[in-house]
């Protein structure tokens, strides 16, 4: 199952992470990649570079950054593929130990369907450990 982690640090925007934090973060990301659980992660630029787009009452409003609140703004995200919510929580814990105080909101990603075969034609192929064009064009 996949979980999205949205990280909101307590520290106000524009508090640059120290060199030590950066090094630790690099090491942690490497560890998460090596563990095969980290699908994607990115950090955000300050909110001054962003905007909020609202659609309400049939009208769009665009508010350019910086956003008025200075704390608990989304600072980055990570997409995990894990076995359980608890595993996602455990990785979050390790992440925040390095990243600093704040909140990491974890949301399970909706994944309709599963690894069921495209057709049993492909399944037959699988048993021969080969891909299937036959299944594609049956």
């Amino acid at each position, binding site marked *: *199952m996949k979980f999205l982690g949205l990280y909101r640090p307590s520290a106000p925007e524009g508090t640059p992470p120290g060199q030590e934090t950066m090094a630790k973060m690099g090491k942690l990301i490497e560890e998460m990649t090596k563990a095969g659980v980290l699908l994607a992660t990115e950090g955000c630029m300050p909110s001054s570079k962003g905007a909020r787009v609202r659609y309400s009452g049939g009208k769009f409003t665009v508010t350019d950054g910086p956003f008025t609140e200075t704390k608990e703004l989304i600072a980055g995200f990570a997409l995990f593929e894990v*076995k359980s919510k608890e595993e996602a*929580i455990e990785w979050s814990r390790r992440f925040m130990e390095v990243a600093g105080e704040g909140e990491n909101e974890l949301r399970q990603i909706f994944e309709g369907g*599963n690894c069921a075969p*495209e057709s049993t034609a492909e399944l037959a*192929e699988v048993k021969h450990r080969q891909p299937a064009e036959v299944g*594609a064009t049956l």
Partner: protein
Amino acid sequence: MTAPDTHLAIDAVWRIESAKLIAGLARIVGDVGVAEDLAQDALVAALERWPESGVPDNPGAWLMATAKHRAIDLLRRRTRLERKHEQLGYELEVQQELAVPNLDAALDDPVGDDLLRLMFTACHPILSTEARAALTLRLLGGLTTEEIARAFLVPAPTVAQRIVRAKRTLSEAGIPFEVPRGDDLTARLSSVLEVVYLIFNEGYAATAGDDWLRPALCEDALRLGRILAELAPEEPEVHGLVALMEIQASRSRARVGPSGEPILLLDQNRSRWDQLLIRRGLAALERAEQLGGANGPYALQAAIAACHARARTGEETDWERIATLYAALAEVSPSPVVELNRAVAVGMAFGPAAGLELVDALRTEPSLKSYHLLPAARGDLLDKLGRFDEARAEFERAASLTQNARERTLLLERSMQPR
């Protein structure tokens, strides 16, 4: 945290730490079976203590320290026993004094090599493929025996026995806990890749109604593959396999209709393909090719899957390239099934007559005698050539050969109404 919550947290920590734990311990005690027992002991200790004390700040280190103490006890007991038997006396005592502090240094070594050793040992060719898959999921995937049994649709005692026997076989054969080198590496690596892909395919073969643990095998295999790619980054076929699995998994949402019916590749809603997995797959494929592995069997299959992944619509599919890739695959890994797939791709790329010629050459192939996809493919090509009576007969024949009711319906429909 309540006790059940703690148990879930412990479960998560186990999932993350168990492989590293077992791998580190196996290097010290030289036996994966003993290493797993020691790791399990540490888990039991955690289950006893953490509900009261709370989960420690560094749970992995706690488990390792606990298991390490037990490993040292075990080694000391062994040494004492040996000494009793062999009367080695003073000399060994000195050695032992020297050896024990070294254990700490050994345990603090980078864990990557240990994990790789564990993977090679669990997938040792001395073991049957089933045993390798079960042992890999157990030691590296952190799955329980019950989970493995449910996923593979076999009784739990069968899996338990398989694992016990596998560990005994490794121990009795004195398989060293190491990463093979030189020529041996290639053969042993292909054994590892085979196991990972087998696990993936077990999940891939699951249907919508199956226990979720079955399709979850796809994720287990992907995780193992991704780990392996980080542990052996210079091996092109590892990236080839990861690419193949990422791209196949990218289609999982689109492969099944609302009532669980399979949807053929060309009929799938491509907007439901997971673009992140496709990107990861394409990147892994590029990695394999950069390492000079474009012609590896996994890289070639990944390249074929990539052709589909890159096409925004079915019509945009680069069938010529697919046909070429199948020809290359037929050279490195020849099989009648590859040949049949090549025939279909050639039919798509160069017209049904060219495809039919290749399919006809396979009609005498004994291994495809009762393979329903041969008449199905032939029927499709005949249909496109306007030879409707022959097409109908082939679809009927294919329908009579398939074991699957949904597919039979599909084939009979086609036999009634050639396009």
